[in-house]
């Protein structure tokens, strides 16, 4: 379970929110520029809030005097652009996180992850040769293999065609139902939220005051 209550001033707006994400898929829903990605970055430890508290499964990630570095948070993050390592093959990309899971027991093994996401035929490929949907699936696998407490997904269906979207949606639902990993998912698409989310949290950037 993720308890989030953190805020940061970025330019003229204050981004942040106050919500709890439990099991299942929780959607952060709001217009572009509302700071949804910033919230994910704050959870992952890539963006430092000005104030607030972030707690995951009872562990204080951020709070007064506490700011765990990203590598110590146990948060899986699937970026909007997949961000696979271009100098590593697909299998090495997947193993990158697996090797750095810091003693957390695997959620499901390597082979099960590959099977779950249908990555068998991609293992020997290089990221530059993958389509958008394939890269997204590899990125999901890479994050899963770190055995995170929660999976963050930034616009997982953006810039994919309908068949690719269906594949990713199926993968997300299997992660929810078979791996039982809580998912915090960011979207600006009402339809996507309706199909995926068990809970919806509305996010809109607040104008900074004072």
């Amino acid at each position, binding site marked *: 379970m993720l308890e989030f209550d953190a805020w940061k001033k970025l330019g003229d707006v204050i981004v942040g929110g106050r919500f709890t994400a439990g099991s299942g898929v929780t959607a952060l829903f709001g217009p572009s520029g509302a700071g949804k990605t910033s919230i994910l970055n704050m959870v992952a430890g890539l963006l430092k809030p000005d104030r607030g508290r972030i707690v995951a499964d009872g562990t204080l990630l951020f709070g007064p005097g506490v700011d765990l570095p990203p590598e110590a948070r146990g948060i899986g993050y699937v970026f909007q652009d997949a961000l696979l390592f271009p*100098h590593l093959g697909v299998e090495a990309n997947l193993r990158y996180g697996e090797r750095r899971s810091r003693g957390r027991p695997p959620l499901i093994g390597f082979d099960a992850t590959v099977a779950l996401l249908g990555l068998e035929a991609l293992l020997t490929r290089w990221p530059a040769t993958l389509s958008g949907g394939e890269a997204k699936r590899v990125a999901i696998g890479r994050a899963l293999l770190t055995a995170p407490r929660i999976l963050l997904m930034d616009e997982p269906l953006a810039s994919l065609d309908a068949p690719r979207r269906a594949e990713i949606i199926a993968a997300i639902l299997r992660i929810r139902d078979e791996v039982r990993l809580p998912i915090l998912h960011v979207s600006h698409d009402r339809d996507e939220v309706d199909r995926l989310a068990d809970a919806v949290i509305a996010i809109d950037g607040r104008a900074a005051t004072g």
Partner: protein
Amino acid sequence: MRLSAVEWAILGLSLKVGIVAVLLCLPVAFALAWLLARRRFPGRMLLDALVHLPLVLPPVVTGWLLLILLGRNGAVGALLYDWFGITLVFRWTGAAVAAAVMALPLMVRAIRLSIEAVDRRLEGAARSLGAGRWDAFVSVTLPLCRPGVIAALVLGFARSIGEFGATITFASNIPGETQTLPLAIYAALQSPGGDAMVTRLSILSILVSLAALLASEWIARRGRHARV
């Protein structure tokens, strides 16, 4: 083309000076490139200008500055001698230092461009996957900078092998100690009947530079193949 023992020695010394200069320069160049590419601090523009100075100064002036700084009575040179017994002037190590200073701007430029080309979000991704700062640097940033580092090594080596002005000013032109290829060519040009030697040494220079370029191309190509 038959080389005399003296000419082989000149080639050997040039390679030694070039390789040592580049290895000496690489960590400094990488650190400077990193600072200039990633950090914002007061005096950054000044540091940038200082790094580039050897590129635009007459090399003789760079050699003279080295003499003042690193000579036996120089501010740093005196300390080097007192503490470590190191003398650079009139030694092949001095020639390597002079070549390293001349190679520095080129190496910093090449490495800096490659650091700036690294997508920093990849480092964030590495961190979120459990890599510490240093781990992310070694496993992601450094391999992605590899083409720039290779380019820097080749450029720096070629620059070092060709260094003349700063070397002759700082380390002097001593056969067998500091007389690298360009200095030997210059000396042969001054001596009557040195034409044949000038020709042979010039051909050697061309071959060495060509070999360095081909080697870098080969290494870069191998890196690309691994990616597609």
